[in-house]
């Protein structure tokens, strides 16, 4: 995610010092997104270079007060208006490991799956506990924090669903009478012949 835009959106509300920005950021994301003060200043430096924020002269304590520029406001509006692209090249280690486990002889795929399921389930339980510990008389910040926790919860849930799906598919494959486990590796993939699709028929019909 873009820490840059998150900080800009805070500055769009009022000018702030670096340490204030960090505190405001954390109150909205909870323990889920650790951000150190060094990252805040590095990010502010880039924003200033790009003309999206301006720093006031330092006060007596040597701290700069940062304010958003007009270009900065435009950038915030653009950020909110533009959907985030699905990560084109997100490398999911779980999926990767599983792909290799399935094709590695002697690996107990069920055990690999279950170990991952237990770990993800534990994370999901932990997130749920964190969420429950929040004050239900929620102010806006409590709401924003718990929505971030929810996103972790839904992602973990999706992973477990996917693991369940993998397990069902692996079991079905193992149970199939024609399981080609013993088939020679060089056998031509006869069943992979491209089937005629409905779309092709439709195209033909349209001609």
């Amino acid at each position, binding site marked *: 995610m873009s820490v840059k835009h998150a900080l800009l959106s805070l500055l769009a509300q009022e000018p702030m010092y670096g340490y204030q920005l960090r505190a405001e950021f*954390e109150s909205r994301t909870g*323990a889920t997104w*650790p951000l150190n003060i060094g990252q805040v200043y590095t990010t502010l430096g880039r924003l200033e270079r790009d003309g999206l924020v301006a720093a006031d002269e330092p006060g007596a304590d040597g701290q700069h007060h940062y304010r958003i520029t007009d270009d900065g406001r435009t950038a915030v509006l653009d950020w909110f208006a533009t959907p985030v692209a699905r990560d084109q090249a997100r490398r999911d280690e779980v999926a990767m490991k599983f792909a290799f486990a399935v094709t590695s002889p002697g690996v107990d795929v069920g055990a690999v799956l*279950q170990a991952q*399921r*237990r*770990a*993800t*389930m*534990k994370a*999901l*339980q*932990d*997130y*749920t*506990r*964190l969420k*429950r*510990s929040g004050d239900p008389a929620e102010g806006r910040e409590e709401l924003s924090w718990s929505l971030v926790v929810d996103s972790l*919860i*839904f992602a*973990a*849930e999706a992973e*477990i*669903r996917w693991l*369940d799906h993998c*397990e*069902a598919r692996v079991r079905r494959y193992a149970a199939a009478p024609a399981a080609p486990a013993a088939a020679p590796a060089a056998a031509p993939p006869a069943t992979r012949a491209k089937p005629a699709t409905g779309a092709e028929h439709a195209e033909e019909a349209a001609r």
Partner: protein
Amino acid sequence: MSGYLTFERVTRVHGQGAASVTALRAASLSVARGELVAVMGPSGSGKSTLLTLAGGLDRPTEGTVRVDGVDLRSLTRSGLAEVRRTKVGYVFQGFNLIPSLTAAENVALPLELDGLGGRESRRLAQEALAEVGLVDEAARFPDDLSGGQQQRVAIARGVVGDRRLLLADEPTGALDSQTGEDVMRLIRERCDAGAAGMVVTHDARHAAWADRVLFIRDGMVVDESASEPVDVLLAGDAR
């Protein structure tokens, strides 16, 4: 013995000979008061079997099920019925509402069977219905309720009164995401207040409300996952 509900090597075989199905194999487990345990597993893995045995609705082929220290096998029919009435709140996978009774009457029924006065039963039933977000629907008959509303009536019937063992079979199957979460919160509150709870669910997000999650495969409990207490979680945080 710390478990309010305990299983000792419980096996349940349906049918005989070649056609027999072992729905549960040598399952051992324990659920204490104050604890909520979730059970997850593929369809046909034995989850409902586990729950019906826990609730005394079915008897094991082998092994021992105890509720509050009492071996269910040692009980007579009426003794078992009494345990079910006084100690067990059960939410069925298929709701099992009585069509000729209103929502409120369905919820009040276990209390009335237990000898509580009609008026007090009605009051507690209304309260339980309110907890699942059904106030205006109390006088309606099951057939006039949506699937999710029927499910919530079944949940209200399961949690009404002071039952110490809550057993719920897919209690959120017909509910949307937020309503399902509200139901888990309710069950969790009952457990925090001292009930022992066991919930069967396909939904990991709902299972995550439990202290422990049991994974069941082909009638066997194969693994479990437990959560850290929240103070440990926060202490581990980088701040």
